[in-house]
């Protein structure tokens, strides 16, 4: 059973970056039947999406988010001893994009850096790894970056996915904290038997050059994913509450991966969560994969008042199939930053900075 109670760390800050390009789902120029679009928008709740120019990658969005966060926190690059990059949209198959980000962020060569290939569940998993590394010793400060550009792997002809997915990057700064009670709880799950429910079959080493052109793009079995979600997420919420020894009333916010408004509303109803404690950013940020958890926090939640400490439950679920939660604490020194990508160079590659 993957339940972990990890003490001795705090979240120093969370920063997100969206690409500057906004796509209005109701724009007739997209070429989908208007009635179909209206229904999808009404159900999924995505009015507009933020998508990258093809020259921008997840790493670029995360780089911007991390740079701003480190500046705000006053973290010198040499004080960071680990960089975790959670993504399913790396710059290259190899090397790990985290190695490129280590160089771009000016982190020292004494810094550990590695990629983690998870999607919708990536945020709580990434936090878990970062917290465990801090707890294990040898680290004072860890950066966990999580970015995705799903708009790059959806078929432009598949309205079920193209109207849903958006792009985003995030950076979360964690550091040691010896304050009594500091830390968080993590619950992680996996069921690979449902892998075909959300899959990009071609392009990697199982099938480098797929004969079926559809296999170059994301395939989503919406019904199977919906079924997985309503079956797995409510028990995850209950399990996390029990493990953390809390009730719904004692949690200040339940931050869902922004998968689909209809699904989130159903989960909230099933788990008895009040509307005012479930932030929604899907309307104008779309489903940007796992980083949507960070986007919902930076765009919809406010930091604690002086002397206050908030408890937020973070919930990731989807591709894998993989799902997990993190019960975190946000203290009054924590920084929440959001950036709409203004001025993000549209032609800046990894080696240009």
């Amino acid at each position: 059973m993957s339940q972990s109670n990890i003490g001795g760390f705090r979240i120093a800050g969370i920063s997100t970056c969206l690409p500057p390009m906004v796509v209005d789902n109701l724009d007739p120029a997209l070429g989908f039947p208007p009635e179909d679009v209206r229904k999808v928008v009404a159900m999924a709740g995505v009015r507009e999406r933020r998508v990258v120019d093809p020259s921008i990658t997840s790493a670029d969005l995360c780089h911007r988010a991390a740079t701003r966060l480190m500046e705000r926190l006053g973290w010198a690059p040499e004080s960071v001893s680990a960089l975790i990059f959670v993504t399913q949209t790396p710059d290259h198959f190899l090397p790990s994009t985290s190695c490129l980000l280590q160089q771009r962020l000016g982190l020292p060569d004494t810094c550990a850096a590695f990629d983690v290939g998870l999607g919708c569940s990536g945020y709580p998993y990434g936090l878990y790894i970062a917290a465990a590394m801090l707890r294990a010793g040898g680290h004072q400060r860890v950066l966990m970056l999580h970015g995705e550009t799903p708009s790059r792997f959806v078929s432009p002809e598949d309205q079920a996915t193209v109207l849903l997915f958006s792009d985003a990057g995030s950076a979360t700064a964690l550091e040691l904290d010896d304050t009594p009670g500091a830390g968080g709880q993590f619950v992680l799950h996996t069921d690979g038997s449902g892998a075909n429910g959300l899959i990009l079959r071609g392009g990697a080493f199982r099938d480098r050059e797929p004969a079926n052109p559809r296999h170059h793009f994301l395939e989503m079995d919406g019904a199977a994913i919906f079924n997985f979600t309503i079956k797995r997420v409510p028990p995850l919420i209950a399990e996390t509450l029990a493990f953390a020894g809390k009730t719904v009333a004692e949690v200040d916010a339940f931050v869902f991966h922004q998968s689909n408004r209809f699904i989130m509303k159903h989960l909230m109803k099933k788990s008895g969560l009040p509307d005012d404690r479930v932030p929604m950013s899907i309307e104008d940020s779309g489903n940007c994969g796992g980083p949507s958890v960070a986007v919902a926090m930076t765009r919809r939640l406010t930091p604690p008042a002086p002397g206050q400490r908030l408890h937020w439950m973070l919930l990731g679920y989807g591709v894998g199939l993989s799902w997990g939660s993190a019960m975190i604490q946000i203290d009054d020194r924590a920084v929440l930053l959001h950036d709409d990508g203004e001025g993000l160079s549209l032609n800046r590659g990894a080696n240009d900075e």
Partner: protein
Amino acid sequence: MSEKSKTQVSVSDALAMLAECFNLPVEDMHADLQRDAIDDWDSMGALMLMAELDERFGIELTAEVSREMTRIGDVLAFLKVHGVLSENA
């Protein structure tokens, strides 16, 4: 089977539920109505039905079973198999 799944409904109540789910007048809803004839029994309608059955009865309609349903009668049969359609309705 959970406590919730023991809730039973009559056939007419089930038809009313399906009419609401698929945005059709309840008087148009009957067991022989084909899926192809229901505009809103599309991929999103299928999710609505899954959510409704989960919320109201606590029963799981899998994607595979959902895809095999071709008429309203199939939904009623599914409810009956799960013990939520009252026999004497």
